[in-house]
């Protein structure tokens, strides 16, 4: 039998999902809820949900009359003559309700709203392999795996039940039957079969605002791809004139002042692919973000690396050009001129502002590669 509270809860979830769906573009654009609830949950503010509440009257002003009264005397407040100062506000109040939603649900909503096709894995997709996990306890086993606490507890329990336990002299002597041993179980675990390589230009011309755009877009891309694969690996590369692999934290919070040489990032990317990710077994996704302000003579080297060493190994290579305050990025045009429609794994997108993130994600992931 379904309890009323369950029905209410279910209906509430439907309303919340509906609201998220309605406002998804706004949530995608603004990255403030990202990372607020750890790895598996995000917290989304829903100002549109108004929680019922009491509204108090005006204490001590008017109300129930006492005594005879005079003709024409008001019996309630609000009869003052003349126009008052100011008008009622036209904006919604500040009732912000935050709801927690799992990344899986969020990915599903994102996929539905953006009409993203399911990704078709290649190679040995969904490979699983047995991993040993020490999750159980047995009565037999090697001494090296003896579980001391469990053994002690068993011995204590036995001595108490036999009446041989003396609180004044609490000696616990385990016998053979008391001994307990850690034991393992084989758990099939998915083997990572997809890798995302993020590359970001952190040169002097990339501002904090541009990096925030990259962070927000990467979060949604990550959310979607993680919903499509059981295991996924992520690698991060930053570059100015030189490039290096870094952790996620460094990726989003580094600013350098060097010049922009995209070929440096491509070189690191190509090396990673060559040494770690056989394209026959791995689904490879590359996402590169830059303001496109590459130092002119570097374009030729970059294009050669991309054409010969990266694109042939990728399911998808996405280049997002985030517009700099100077709008001087030319690399997008260089890519389009060099490749045109030649490479269907290459997708480009111009991200002029935060508002363009939504459409950019659709451009990148709309191919279902």
């Amino acid at each position, binding site marked *: 039998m379904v309890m009323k509270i369950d029905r209410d809860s279910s209906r509430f979830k439907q309303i919340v999902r509906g609201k998220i769906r309605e406002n998804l573009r706004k949530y995608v654009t603004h990255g403030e809820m990202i990372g607020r609830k750890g790895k598996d949950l995000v917290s989304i503010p829903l100002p549109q949900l108004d929680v019922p509440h009491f509204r108090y009257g005006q204490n001590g002003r008017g109300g129930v009359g006492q005594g005879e009264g005079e003709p024409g005397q008001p019996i309630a407040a609000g009869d003052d003559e003349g126009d008052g100062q100011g008008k009622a506000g036209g904006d919604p109040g500040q009732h912000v309700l935050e709801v927690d939603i799992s990344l899986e649900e969020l990915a599903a909503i994102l996929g539905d709203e953006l009409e993203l096709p399911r990704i078709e894995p290649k190679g040995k997709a969904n490979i699983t392999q047995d991993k040993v996990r020490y999750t159980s306890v047995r009565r037999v086993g090697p001494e090296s795996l003896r579980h001391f606490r469990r053994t002690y507890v068993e011995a204590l329990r036995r001595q108490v039940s036999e009446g041989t336990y003396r609180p004044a002299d609490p000696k616990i002597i385990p016998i053979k039957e008391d001994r307990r041993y850690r034991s393992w179980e084989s758990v099939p675990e998915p083997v990572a079969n997809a890798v995302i390589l993020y590359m970001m230009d952190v*040169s*002097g*011309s990339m501002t904090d605002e541009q990096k925030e755009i990259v962070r927000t877009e990467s979060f949604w891309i990550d959310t979607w791809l993680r919903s499509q694969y059981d295991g996924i690996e992520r690698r991060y590369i930053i570059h*100015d*004139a030189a490039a290096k692999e870094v952790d996620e934290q460094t990726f989003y919070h580094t600013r350098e*002042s*060097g*010049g*922009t*040489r995209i070929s440096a990032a491509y070189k690191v990317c190509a090396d990673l692919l060559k040494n770690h990710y056989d394209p026959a077994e791995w689904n490879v996704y590359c996402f590169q973000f830059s303001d496109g*302000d590459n*130092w002119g*003579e570097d374009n030729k080297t970059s294009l050669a690396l991309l054409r010969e060493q990266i694109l042939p190994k990728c399911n998808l290579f996405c280049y997002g050009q985030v517009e700099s*305050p*100077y*709008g*001087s990025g*030319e690399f997008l*045009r260089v890519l389009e001129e060099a490749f045109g429609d030649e490479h269907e794994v290459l997708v480009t997108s111009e991200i002029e502002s935060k508002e363009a993130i939504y459409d950019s994600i659709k451009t990148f992931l709309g191919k279902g590669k």
Partner: protein
Amino acid sequence: MTTKQDIARELARIQSQNGLGRLEVDTPSGKLEAQLVAVDAIGCAFESLTYKTDKLATSTVKDLKKLSDALTAKLNYLMEPISAVEFDADSCTVQCRSNPPQQGEDGRSYYELLVRKGGELLLSRYLKQPGQPRQVVPAQVTREVLARLGEDFVGAVG
């Protein structure tokens, strides 16, 4: 003659040629050049202002950074302040730009100053219109400002 007087003389020459021409002034340490597209009694418009000098032939990025810092501190009379944006060790170049760029109705415009080993100082003005690649636009300055720019370029290199 001083650099300022040389520039004034060249401006007078180019004005007499319908305001179009190449300004060239030799200095003790190099050569000052400007591609002018308009000159009148008060002001002028140039597409590029270059100072070429051998004094930067063996400079390091650190030297160029120091030079660009000194120069951008002097160039406080342009429409926007200029500051260093990127340093490229490979090509030994410092890139300075207006910070922030000027936002106009037709797009964003800004100065770009490149300080290169070799050596060269190059000042140009760019306009970036929405949906278009950036393009060089003439920088409009008074005659006095152009002369001062020339003097500061020469003075910064020493």
